[in-house]
């Protein structure tokens, strides 16, 4: 969603349509409408006086936006599915374990109960956790308007600072996530303030099963540039974890271009970004199981305070 720099317009008018067609008609006809999904981000922006919208279009009465469907290739997740459900639903945990793991890192359990999958993406923040996983998994966003439906890969969805591929009149209706078959994955989120603050640096890593002696190492980076970033690199199947870390860091380094803020300066974040990349790759590589093929997708993470503590220790040692 583009952040049009207009004057604040006072309290936006709330619309509560109960069909998707009505939603599309409203979004197509109103001048500065914004979709109201879970509402957690929108409500904060309103309180901060920085929401530039004339109208809010509430999705909570629209049926069929909160389903998780098993498809031939993976999952189709409705835009109004809560982040907490992504974290805890047994089907999500089985089919796309990396996604379940990463959704469980957003904010706190209460916000995750309310915030929606579609709204989280449309929010378009460069520090979001879910895009790191969705990019390495090759997910795509389903967008709808009165003109019809189109799909945009998550890797192409974030087009500029706080700006997404959602066009005027469109809304996010679903995210399609391919099953995580035969790959292993890891995630690292490093915060310089409280653990549930926005990350200072985050990275998701996914290692595919070997094809002709090569594995593809995919990396999704959060908070390390003005948009979530994606890179991939081929790694020989018989490479050790140290080689994988080196190749991954070499691939990630050039796209890391941090915005300095209260969470750290650009140099600090660049350094911490490479630590996050290393942590995520080590977590993913640790579960590739050597020559094992065809294993179900697994997701291991150096999660929680131990990983954070170890990363920080390593960073201080390496200064």
């Amino acid at each position: 969603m583009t952040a049009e720099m207009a004057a604040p317009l006072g309290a936006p008018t709330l619309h509560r349509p109960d069909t998707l067609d009505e939603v599309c008609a409203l979004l197509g006809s109103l001048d500065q409408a914004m979709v109201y999904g879970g509402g957690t981000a929108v409500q904060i922006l309103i309180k901060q006086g920085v929401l530039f919208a004339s109208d809010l279009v509430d999705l909570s009465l629209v049926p069929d936006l909160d389903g998780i469907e098993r498809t031939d290739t993976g999952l189709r997740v409705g835009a109004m599915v809560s982040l907490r459900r992504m974290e805890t639903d047994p089907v999500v945990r089985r089919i796309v374990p990396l996604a379940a793991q990463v959704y469980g890192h957003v904010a706190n359990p209460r916000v995750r109960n309310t915030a929606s999958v579609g709204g989280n993406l449309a929010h378009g923040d460069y520090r979001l956790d879910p895009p790191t996983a969705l990019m390495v998994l090759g997910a795509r966003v389903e967008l709808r308007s009165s003109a019809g439906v189109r799909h945009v890969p998550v890797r192409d969805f974030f087009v500029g600072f706080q700006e997404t591929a959602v066009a005027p009149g469109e809304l996010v209706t679903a995210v399609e996530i391919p099953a995580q078959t035969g790959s292993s994955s890891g995630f690292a989120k490093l915060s310089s303030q409280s653990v549930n603050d926005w990350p200072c640096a985050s990275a998701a890593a996914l290692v595919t099963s070997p094809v002709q002696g090569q594995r593809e190492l995919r990396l999704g980076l959060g908070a390390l540039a003005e948009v979530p970033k994606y890179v991939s690199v081929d790694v020989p199947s018989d490479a050790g974890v140290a080689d994988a870390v080196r190749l991954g860091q070499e691939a990630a380094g050039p796209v890391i271009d941090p915005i300095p803020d209260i969470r750290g300066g650009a140099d600090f974040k660049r350094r911490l970004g490479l630590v996050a990349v290393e942590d995520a790759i080590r977590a993913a590589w640790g579960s590739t199981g050597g020559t094992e093929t065809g294993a179900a997708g697994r997701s291991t993470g150096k999660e929680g305070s131990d990983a954070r503590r170890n990363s920080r220790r390593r960073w201080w040692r390496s200064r």
Partner: protein
Amino acid sequence: MTTDVQMTVNGARHRVAVADDDLLLDVLRRLGITSVREGCGVGACGACTVLAEDHSVSSCLARAVRYDGVPLTTADGLAEDDDVVEEFVAAGAMQCGYCIPGFVLMGHELLAQNPAPTREEIAAHLEGNICRCGTYQEICSAIEATARRRQAENERRSA
């Protein structure tokens, strides 16, 4: 716009006229339910926690109009002998008490989803609740004690 909604709080039904941008927090406090408090106002501190159909919600970020007819639980609606509250008292988990209703409700949500949480799982579930008095250790112990107590009661009942 103003809408007539039914707020269902702790089993009691209230007909209230709410404006589109009225927050659940403000509507509940207007009903006299003062265990729901404003802290940070951005969903990060947990003082305004309510349970909506047993799911924790930050009422400071929730529009009341969306909770028409949804069963809500607030801390003051818990039973006199609520086990989580009793264990908070026993553990000395309260000092000023401002944040405690939110912690108690988060404890209820966690134990409903996970009857035997580890200390790490308790801490992870409470990561969005802030206690300025700093009784986090006692709060975690109180939730652990409630889990043990429920387990003992279940064993007694099935014996």
